[in-house]
């Protein structure tokens, strides 16, 4: 490479008109991803974006890479096929809370447990946007929507808890408005070998505006954003006056002054067991009040497609490359003169 970067953001934009609603959080995420890819020294043709159905799933049309806008919920399965077929590609899954957690829940958890090398960006806006405002599997209990006029009685998923339970090797959360943090998380997820899961809180300003206001509002955000940093005590607030302790009953927010900095949990994203990460994921419901953002878990485990490729090499070492003549004779033959 020369000293000038290979790409600019424009190289990752397509000629297609972006058709999200004005003010949608998806624009910010699109810009974050395009900027991130422009900074990477990776050929554009090696990125593949696979999406399902929903507002967020239009994303591949706006990315000048290889891509597929597939069918509802199935993006992790299709992406798994791409990744297993060609481990040299970087495969991204763009999905939403309905796409990934409702109709496609099965594919999501199995892609995570297999640790197939795909990077999943789940745009969580806690509502069905494309179908115009029905409650989603992450909508809060009691939410009144067109399909829940008396309030939703569905208990919601916590996507980070779900991913941790599904044996994911990389689990993170960020928020559309915080582009610097999004870039940081994208970098770590990209570098992670295996399935990486990022929940992105994304504002739907038409059907579910201000769902994340406690994390984005000028007045409240400092008090509510808990940035997880590996190897550092989990503290937050304007003056880092608040902290998190983890005990047998789970994670709890405390005043650092009350317990002393030594009792504050030091974040370990590399912990082999996901128990503490899970406890951290339970700190906030809604999200209301202090909510962890950042990398909950980042551990190393063999990836599916590398193991598959290794098995092929092993089999060829042991049996030689496939010989069709031998194969059709492998069950025994006889000759008729």
């Amino acid at each position, binding site marked *: 490479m020369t000293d000038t970067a290979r790409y600019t953001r424009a190289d990752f934009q397509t000629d297609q008109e972006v058709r999200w609603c004005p003010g949608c959080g998806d624009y910010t995420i699109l810009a974050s991803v395009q900027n991130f890819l422009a900074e990477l020294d990776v050929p554009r043709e090696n990125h593949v974006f696979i999406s399902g159905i929903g507002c967020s799933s239009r994303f591949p049309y706006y990315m000048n890479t290889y891509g597929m806008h*597939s069918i509802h919920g199935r993006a992790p399965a299709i992406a798994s*096929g*791409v990744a297993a077929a060609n481990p040299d590609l970087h495969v991204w899954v763009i999905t939403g809370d309905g796409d990934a957690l409702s109709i496609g829940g099965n594919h999501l958890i199995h892609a995570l447990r297999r640790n197939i090398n795909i990077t999943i960006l789940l745009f969580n806006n806690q509502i069905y946007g494309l179908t115009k405002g029905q409650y989603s599997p992450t909508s809060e209990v009691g939410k009144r929507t067109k399909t829940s006029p008396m309030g939703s009685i569905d208990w919601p998923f916590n996507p980070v808890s779900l991913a941790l339970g599904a044996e994911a090797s990389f689990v993170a959360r960020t928020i559309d408005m915080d582009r610097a943090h999004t870039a940081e998380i994208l970098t770590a997820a990209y570098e992670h070998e295996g399935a990486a899961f990022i929940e992105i809180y994304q504002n739907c300003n038409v059907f579910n505006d201000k769902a994340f206001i406690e994390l984005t509002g000028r007045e409240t955000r400092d008090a509510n954003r808990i940035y997880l940093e590996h190897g550092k005590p989990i503290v937050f607030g304007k003056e880092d006056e608040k902290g998190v302790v983890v005990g047998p009953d789970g994670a709890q927010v405390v005043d650092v002054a009350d317990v002393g900095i030594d009792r504050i949990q030091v974040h370990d994203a590399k912990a082999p067991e996901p128990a503490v990460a899970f406890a951290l994921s339970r700190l906030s419901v809604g999200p209301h009040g202090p909510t962890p953002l950042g990398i909950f878990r980042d551990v190393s485990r063999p990836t599916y497609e590398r193991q598959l490729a290794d098995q092929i090499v092993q089999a060829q070492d042991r049996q030689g490359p*496939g010989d069709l003549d031998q194969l059709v004779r492998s069950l025994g033959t006889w000759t008729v003169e």
Partner: protein
Amino acid sequence: MSEETTADTRPEPEPIDNVVIRFAGDSGDGMQLAGTRFTASSALFGNDLATFPNFPAEIRAPAGTLAGVSAFQVHIADWDILTPGDSPDCLVAMNPAALKANIGDVVKGGLVIVNSDAFDERNLHKAGYETNPLEDGSLESYHLLTAPMEQLTKEAVQGTGVKGREVLRSKNFFALGLMSWMYQRPLDPVIDWIDQKFGDSPVAAANTAALKAGYNYGLTTEAFHHTYSVAPATLPAGEYTNITGNQSLAWGLVAASQASGLPLFYGSYPITPASSILEALARLRNFGVRTFQAEDEIAGIGTSVGAAFAGHLAATGTSGPGLALKSEALSLALMAELPLIVVDVQRGGPSTGLPTKVEQSDLLFAMYGRHGEAPLPVIAAATPSDAFEVAIEAARIALKYMTPVILLSDGYIANSSEPWKLPDLSRLPDLTVDYAEGPNQGESFLPYLRDPETLARPWAVPGTPGLEHRLGGLEKQDGTGNVSYDPMNHEHMTILREEKIARIADDIAPVEVFGDEDAELLVLGWGSTFGAIRAGVNRARKREAKVAHVHLRHINPFPANLGEVLARFETVLIPELNRGQLSRLIRARYLVDTISQSKVQGQPFKAAEIAMKIMQLLDGKDEQR
């Protein structure tokens, strides 16, 4: 008494030109194994053969009950046979339930060999017998032979080291030994197989001992002295192997992978009777085969769609219920115009239906089971060995026309076996594919710019610089592939997709008429009914009937000459293991007043059923439509 004097009292084996033998017992009795080994010996001996395993869906149904009976039928002959036989000439029944479930099929005067040890009060009761059929005279129209197989097996395996319940596990080998004696099959191939399978172990020793004991019991027991011999068949010269349909289909996919130079990807979810394709391919990693056991049927096809996008020869396999689940993704592959082979090994339906039994009832589902206007090529295997060629043909069409192809097999083809004359593998068709490598219109790359002849779009594989593009399920603008809601474009694209499939008709073999070109009656078939139809037609022709047979490999599109061929015959009979699905397609397409012969009993047609229908039609006795 010396060996020689014993030999003198035994008559020479009676030469017969063919025999149908059915091994029947509890599903845990090892009858499939006994039948398979008997078949292998016969194959090595040079007979022509066809087999038909028939087993319950339950792995271990309650012992001794009718529901738990598992059977394996093999037809061996010294001539070229087409079916596993209509009715057994010989039944081996390991218990009362096996006898009861199968005796009705045995030809009158046929040989019935039973394990008399199993005919105690408890087993008789479980099978629903009020009196012992071995003693009450109810079997007097058969040639009944009994042997205390369990007692004799126990004695035979003494000293081999097997204990407890393992002792009686060898009784299937006793039965196999006895049958090897009766039909003069060599034991060596079985002993070699036992050694290979079980190594130097007590189980190997016990199985071999039981096998020999069965053989020797026949040799020394006067009742069993009337034996039979079936001479080797005069098959075309060549090297043969005995193959089941799922095995040959798996190998056909591998052959297509080699012929195309593309790695094979097979995403699938286990389902009866398709699972053994996944199993067979999983063993072939050294061929570069990537099998992916998916979390469900949808992911089975989803991963394959992804692999096709990535440039692999992609396939998925399933049975009816799974095809239903794959329907949405199949439409995506159609819209994205990606090559994909979808194998449907049909079974009795609807719903869970009859998982281990044969039916051809997914034909209309394969034709029309998608939302929107969604035509796809549909082809069908006719016999176990034909599945090899059909798999290659499916790949050829998929790659050349950039389309998913549905390949229909069924439970009968999947599990039955026949001798397969090994093809000349140096003469596989050239399926080489040219991926797109650069712009195809000026400086631009248009992912939906079509080949003017085939209407196929270019296949640009991720990783290729400069050809970045987006596929998707939304309607495409012709050429650019961009999303388009333009009404005229949608109609244009719908017709283009239809036309692309229709044009395949000019690129497939025309149908060939077998039999009497000047006949009034044509029997038209597809899929696994081939053997029964051909044998039925042959029988009718031996009785001086004039009749012709056409068997379809390609069902969508139909071969170009089919309409003209149909028009040459006054009557068209279509036997199918469904309620007349091909018949409806033919009526709709060609306005031919077809006669449907339908069977939905989970069993294949018998040649006699086809022959009888032909004779009825020709005698004008049957006006039933």
